[in-house]
C-alpha cells in the first residue's frame, strides 16, 4: 500500500486526542508485534493491533477509524499483558470507540438484538456489550 505521510498528520490533534482519552503514548510502541500475535481476535480484525498503533504513529487516523478492529476487540488485555513496553492497544481501541460513542452514535441498536439472546444471555454480556457498543 502506498501512502503519503506528512508531518501535519503525524502531529495531528486527532492522534493527541486518542492519546489523551486512552492515556497511552503511541510512540512508545516499537512494533515487535507481540500484541497481534497474542490477540485472540486479530484474525477477525481488518487492521491487527500492532498495525493500529503503527497507523496512529503515522497520523493515519482515518484508516483506523474505518476498520472494524475497535469493534472486534474484546478487551481481554492479552496485548497489554504481553507488551514489552507496557502499551495497552486495548485502551487505544477503547479510545477509538469512545470517540464514536461520545458523539451519540451507536454501533449496535438495542432494539435490533434478537429476543432469545436478550432472554438467555448472562446479564454481564448485555451490560458489557451495551457499554462497548452503545452510546
Amino acid at each position: 500500500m502506498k501512502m503519503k505521510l506528512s508531518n501535519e498528520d503525524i502531529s495531528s490533534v486527532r492522534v493527541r486526542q486518542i492519546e489523551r482519552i486512552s492515556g497511552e503514548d503511541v510512540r512508545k510502541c516499537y512494533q515487535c508485534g507481540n500484541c497481534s500475535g497474542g490477540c485472540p481476535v486479530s484474525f477477525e480484525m481488518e487492521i491487527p493491533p500492532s498495525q493500529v498503533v503503527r497507523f496512529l504513529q503515522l497520523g493515519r487516523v482515518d484508516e483506523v477509524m474505518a476498520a472494524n478492529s475497535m469493534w472486534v476487540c474484546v478487551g481481554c488485555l492479552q496485548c497489554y499483558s504481553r507488551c514489552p513496553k507496557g502499551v495497552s492497544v486495548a485502551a487505544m481501541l477503547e479510545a477509538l470507540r469512545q470517540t464514536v460513542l461520545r458523539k451519540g452514535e451507536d454501533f449496535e441498536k438495542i432494539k435490533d438484538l434478537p429476543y432469545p439472546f436478550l432472554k438467555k444471555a448472562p446479564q454481564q454480556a448485555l451490560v458489557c456489550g451495551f457499554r462497548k457498543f452503545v452510546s
Partner: protein
Amino acid sequence: MKIPYYPGCTLNTVAKHFDASARDAAVSMGFEMEELAQWNCCGATFPLTPDNLIGLTAPAKVLSNARKAGDTLTTLCSVCYNVLKRTNKVMKDSKEKRAVVNGFIEEEYDGSLNIIHYLEVLRDRVGFVKVKEAVKRPLKGVKAGCYYGCMLLRPFEDIGIDNAERPTVFEDLLRALGAEVVDFPNKIECCGAHLAMNNEDVVVRLSGNVMTSAVGMGAELIVTSCPLCQYNLEKSQPKVSERTAGYAGVPIAYFTQILGLALGQPVEGLGFEKNATDIMPLLQKKGIV
C-alpha cells in the same frame, strides 16, 4: 468465619446454581458467604480509558457499601472480581479520581477494602490442605481442564491472583479435590466475551479453540469461574461439534459445583441440570455417583 459477599447480577439470575453451590460449599468448609445488604451492578466492564470516571461510579458504590459491612469483600464472577478490584485500586491510589467519584456517589470511600476471589478464600484463608481433608467424594480418575479466561488474571499488576501466563490456583484446587488436572494451551485465552451480542462466528471459534484444545490434551471436563465463559462455551458446543471432526463435546461446569460434588453434597442440589452439558454420564462412568 463470615465473609461479606457480592454476588453480582448474573449470579442472581441465570447463574443461580453458581451462587448456590458456592454458598453450600462454603458452609461445608466452615465459613459463610454473607451477601451484602445492599448492592448494585458493578458495570460489567472496567473502563479501559482512564478519563472515563463515570464507569467507576457503579463499582465504587458497591465498594463503599461493602466497606460498611467489613474490611473484606469476596466475589465469584471473574468479571465482578476484575471490575471491583481494579476500581478499588483507583480509589486507593488516585486522590483526584477518588474525590471526583466520591463526590458523584456521595460517599467517602478510600479504597481500603481487600477484594478477594472465592478461590483466594479457599487457597489463602482455608488452605487447600484443609479442602483436601474435607473431600468426601474424591474425583478420582476425572481428567479436568481448568479454564481461567481473561478477567480472573489480567492485568497482573492490578489483579495478581496468580501468574498471568502460567496460573496454577485452579489446578491446585482441582488436585486437592482428587481430580487429575490437564494442562492445555488455551486455558488463559478469551472465550469471545461480549461478542456473544453481535459476532457469533468469533465466539464459536474462540470458545471452540478452548474446548478442542482441552479435549485434545485429554480433558473429560472443563471447569470455569465466569458465567460468560460458561455461557459462551455451552452455547458454542453444538456448532463446534458440528465443525470439528472427532470432537464429540465435553461437559462444562462451574468450579463451585465440582467443589460441592467433591465435598459430598447431594448431587441433585448442585444444579448440574441447569448446565447445558450433561456431566452425569462422566460421573457415572468414573463411579463417583
